[in-house]
């Protein structure tokens, strides 16, 4: 219950952290509300995966990793760089969608295809590892749990609490009849990717040199 309440009380911040990734993607794809719900589910599953891996990690170390600023910078910096790579790739991605036969069926291809579950899971996973302020609170609390199951349960309920605020996101599908938004979404993804790249690079530099 504590995890759910923490998620619910800080969910707007989580939504604000996820929105720069999710909103440009949903606009850029220009799909309907139902398909956006499916995309959101995949994104959230990725985020859940990120959270749960942290649950294991937080329980395992029993210390609050985020208190170590150098390690924190390295971790968040790396997550931002991966996220930047995915967003920039999405922004400039063109091939494969118009002609599905063009690509292969391997893992590499599925990661490269922005409509594949892999791509959305990856976006969700890296966003989940971004250590936004509420997430740092959750990590600190989870590190005090006695058992692994408790830690996982805490993160699961925290995840549910925060996800409530992302439920309206698929409604962006209502705007799909306005084609310029697809271009705008992709351009915004590229710009946000570039922003994350600089943030990540400077954080990594800070993490290495602090």
């Amino acid at each position, binding site marked *: 219950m504590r995890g759910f309440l923490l998620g619910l009380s800080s969910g707007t911040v989580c939504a604000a952290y996820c929105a720069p990734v999710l*909103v440009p993607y949903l606009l850029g794809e220009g799909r309907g509300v139902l398909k956006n719900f499916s995309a959101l589910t995949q994104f959230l599953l990725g985020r859940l995966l990120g959270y749960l891996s942290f649950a294991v990690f937080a329980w395992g170390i029993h210390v609050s990793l985020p208190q170590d600023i150098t390690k924190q910078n390295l971790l968040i910096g790396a997550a931002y760089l991966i996220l930047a790579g995915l967003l920039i790739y999405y922004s400039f991605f063109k091939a494969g969608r118009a002609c599905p036969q063009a690509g292969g069926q391997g893992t590499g291809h599925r990661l490269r295809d922005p409509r594949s579950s892999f791509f959305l899971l990856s976006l969700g996973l890296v966003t989940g590892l971004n250590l936004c302020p509420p997430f740092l609170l959750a990590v600190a609390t989870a590190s005090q749990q006695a058992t692994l199951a408790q830690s996982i349960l805490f993160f699961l309920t925290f995840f549910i609490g925060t996800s409530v605020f992302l439920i309206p996101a698929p409604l962006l599908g209502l705007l799909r009849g306005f084609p*310029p938004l697809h*271009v705008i979404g992709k*351009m915004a993804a590229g710009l946000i990717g570039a922003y994350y790249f*600089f943030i990540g*690079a400077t954080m990594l530099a*800070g993490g290495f040199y602090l």
Partner: protein
Amino acid sequence: MMKEHHPQENTVGDRQSLGKSFLFAFPMMLLTFIMMSGGKIPAEPQKLFVFAVTYLFFNILFFLMIHTGKTDRYRATAFITYALLFIVSFISHMFEVRGSMSLSEEKIILCEVPFCHLVIPMTLIPAAFTRTIIFPGSITEGYASIASMFAIWIGASLSLGRGWCSWGCFFGGLDDAFSRILKKPLIKKIDPRWTYLPWAVLLAAMLTAAAFLSPTYCSWICPFKAVTEFQAVTSFKILVQTIIFVALFIALVIVLPLMTKRRTQCSLFCPFGAMQGLTNRINAFAVRIDPDKCINCKKCVTACPTFSMTEESVQAGGALTSCMKCGTCVDVCPKGAPSFHVRGTPVDENRNIKRLLFLYAAFLFLATFSAGNIQDGLSRIIRLITTGSMI
């Protein structure tokens, strides 16, 4: 006077006789006098001189607008002068109070950073959710307070819509100036999809500002920091930010306007401008095209410095929502098809009255808003000539 974007000898303008021009300009003379003086004429000789020069400058330009029936060249003269003297005034002021153009951490913590309208889109979401303005400025005090800028912006949006970008913005005159230097553009074809970029910048800036509770556009990519103020380079991060904004200033405000003869920063990048386009929808004034007069020569499409006239929009009878109401299309048309229009009225009736109504609103706003900076800029230039220092 400024060069027109595409000078045309045989264009149709609502030219007025000298007597009528004086009659129509007289209300502006009175209004600008009241607004600029605040009911008190400066007693000090230098201030009086600067006041008189500024007053005459504006009223001669307005008189010429009425008399010649042309808008853009006189607007641009005032608008570019404003941008240049704003920079002179702003930088001198910064040197006076801080000793340099750079911002220290201390000034940021003390919330002594002047607020500029370009920040407004980024402040909206965080203000709605957290009731906090995510900018290290003062709400009511200081050189440019947050409240005063919001009040001016709301007033301008109601009266001019995106006309703000051609009549009010203190930065817009810079790329406007560079876009007029060459006679012909070196780059003629620009993919129309680039006109969506300001919306993408707006979306990215608003989302990242909401996520990080920080004015990300200002911190990272605002090109105009190059001519106003910037953070002192004390870290690798600030160094990267400095390189980015200087490069963007050179590219978007100098090089691209020169090469394309378009206002590239304002029409292809500025997120505030994109947002301001929405206010064009609720604004009383618009640029419309009389289909009976239009001969489809596409001169307005070629001349529009803001990509707001396209073949489709001409067919539809008006400019796009990105129109900054600069008047270039109105001036350049050989048949007088485009005109300043008041919504809800017939396009082909009382064109001159509608143009006058718009000009009274737009020019009075420009004169009132810019007069302080122009006078201060002029005073500092006089001080530089007479004493060797602007401060």
